[in-house]
């Protein structure tokens, strides 16, 4: 797998490209533009860039008001502040009003540039997924970020977009066309299915390589749109393989794993193990250290696949 530019770079660059084509796009920032890369937009379109200061609740409401006047606001801050801090504003001013606001949760999950627990969005997907009408997208790589952004500008309604800070291997194929709500099969396999979202799909791909060496053929399914989720792809995976492992850069409660479990429980019960933060806060560390310490590495995902197959045999 080739290392590519980070999702945030792709985000910042694509935002400028989209804004050149669409004059309705405006950006609101809560004093993090250099970190989130919306600074590129600010430099090119100062008249469409609104610095709202360290005041996320107001920023969400202002974005909602702009959307009601026909703008397409991208509100950008860290995922923790977009979700935890401004939750009620997102729910009422944005989602209840079905305002056409794109909420950008940067530095998503535990890989937050060594900022530690306060800056790690480990419940943002759960919060946003629970808000009626909110679309939740967690792209895996630079190419998918670019594609997903085109799709969410086309889509009329509130969207929460997760953006990771650092580069992760590209998992989307050449010429990939992102479709909102559709999963991507990254690798075929008939024994077990590894389902990832965001950067964790690349960890699933590595886990599949490990499993291959251990005589197990793992399918890898990438779910970028966590809500609405691709029910069909999950049901198909449950029927065609012996079980499911989910891997998410998030608490295992309320995020991808929960969403997949809901689909399985209602449509195609199957053995399952969830990989992610196990109901704890993270801490400072390098990405590799964090994935290791919180049992989210490719080895942990592969071990979970073995556990799923064991569950399947004992059914």
């Amino acid at each position: 797998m080739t290392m590519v530019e980070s999702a945030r770079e792709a985000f910042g660059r694509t935002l400028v490209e989209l804004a050149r084509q669409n004059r309705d796009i405006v950006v609101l920032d809560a004093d993090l533009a250099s970190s989130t890369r919306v600074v590129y937009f600010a430099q090119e379109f100062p008249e469409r860039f609104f610095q709202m200061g360290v005041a996320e609740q107001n920023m969400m409401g202002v974005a909602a008001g702009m959307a009601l006047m026909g703008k397409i606001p991208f509100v950008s801050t860290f995922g923790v502040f977009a979700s935890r801090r401004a939750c009620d504003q997102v729910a009422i001013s944005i989602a209840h009003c079905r305002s056409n606001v794109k909420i950008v949760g940067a530095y998503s999950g535990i890989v937050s540039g060594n900022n530690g627990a306060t800056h790690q969005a480990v419940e943002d997907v759960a919060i946003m997924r629970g808000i009626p009408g909110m679309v939740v997208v967690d792209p895996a790589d630079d190419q998918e970020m670019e594609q997903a952004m085109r799709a969410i500008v086309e889509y009329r309604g509130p969207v929460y977009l997760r953006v990771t800070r650092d580069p992760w291997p590209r998992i989307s194929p050449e010429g990939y066309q992102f479709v909102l709500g559709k999963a991507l099969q990254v690798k075929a396999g008939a024994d077990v299915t590894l389902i990832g979202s965001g950067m964790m799909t690349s960890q699933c791909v590595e886990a599949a390589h490990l499993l291959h060496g251990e005589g197990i053929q793992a399918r890898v399914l990438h779910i970028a749109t966590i809500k609405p989720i691709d029910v069909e792809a999950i049901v198909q995976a449950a029927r065609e393989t012996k079980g499911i492992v989910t891997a998410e850069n998030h608490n295992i409660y309320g995020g991808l794993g929960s969403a997949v479990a809901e689909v399985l429980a209602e449509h195609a019960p199957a053995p399952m193990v969830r990989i992610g933060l196990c109901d704890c806060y993270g801490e400072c560390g390098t990405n590799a250290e964090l994935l290791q310490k919180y049992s989210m590495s490719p080895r942990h995902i592969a071990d979970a696949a073995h556990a799923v197959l064991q569950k399947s045999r004992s059914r």
Partner: protein
Amino acid sequence: MTLLSKQQIQYLEETARRIRCHVVRTISEAGVGHPGGSLSEVDILTALYFHIMKIDPKRPDWEERDRFVLSKGHGAAGLYATLAERGFFPVEWLKTFGRIDSPLQVHPDMHLVPGIEVSTGALGQGLSVALGMALAARMDGKGIHVYCLIGDGESQEGQVWEAAESAAHYKVDNLTVILDYNRVQLMGPLKEVMEIAPVADKWRSFNWAVTEIDGHDMQQIITAVEAAKQSKGQPHIVIAHTIKGKGVSYMEGQSAWHGKAPNQEQLAQALAELGCKQ
């Protein structure tokens, strides 16, 4: 400054009186709602919808219309009665207030009612939305003015002050805020629950222009709001001193009537005091 003729004032006062009759009937029939804050805001809403704002009830989605945001969303019954009286929807709708399948939710839903610009009721959020509308209108060079009515209890929310700070920062002058300063909230007088005074000084210190008026004097409301609209280079707040439950003697100044519906007997008294057709 426009001085209104005696007839104009009489017309507006008579309209406000009819709206108050709708408010007490609506809330009493529904058995739910917020009479205190709905009655205190009626003269302000009447001035806006019957004299000040550029609107067309037949075209509620007319792009060039002025926008009104009821940030204190629990004042919905007052706003619905005003919109109905102004012709945005039939007065009969008021009978459905707060009932299942009704467009008239106890807090306003923008998707259900013509003339409601934004869903509100989670306190403290409306001013931010109004600011976003004003900024967007200014970007597009549109002569749209945004009016936002906030509550005094609501002003305890921190978001109000975030919005105040940013509106002043961006020198937004196509936004006028009106404070329905009735000094009473659900659990009692503000001075006991959580004092917001000296509220005029607070807004001034946030770099807003401030005007204080009697919020039940039609001429004062119109003079102040029209002057606020003309003032340039900074946002403007009109602090309207009002009486909670205005017009109904047993409700006036009473926190008990923040969110309680009058029974049949109480309704009859309220209608009589307001001079409504029984």
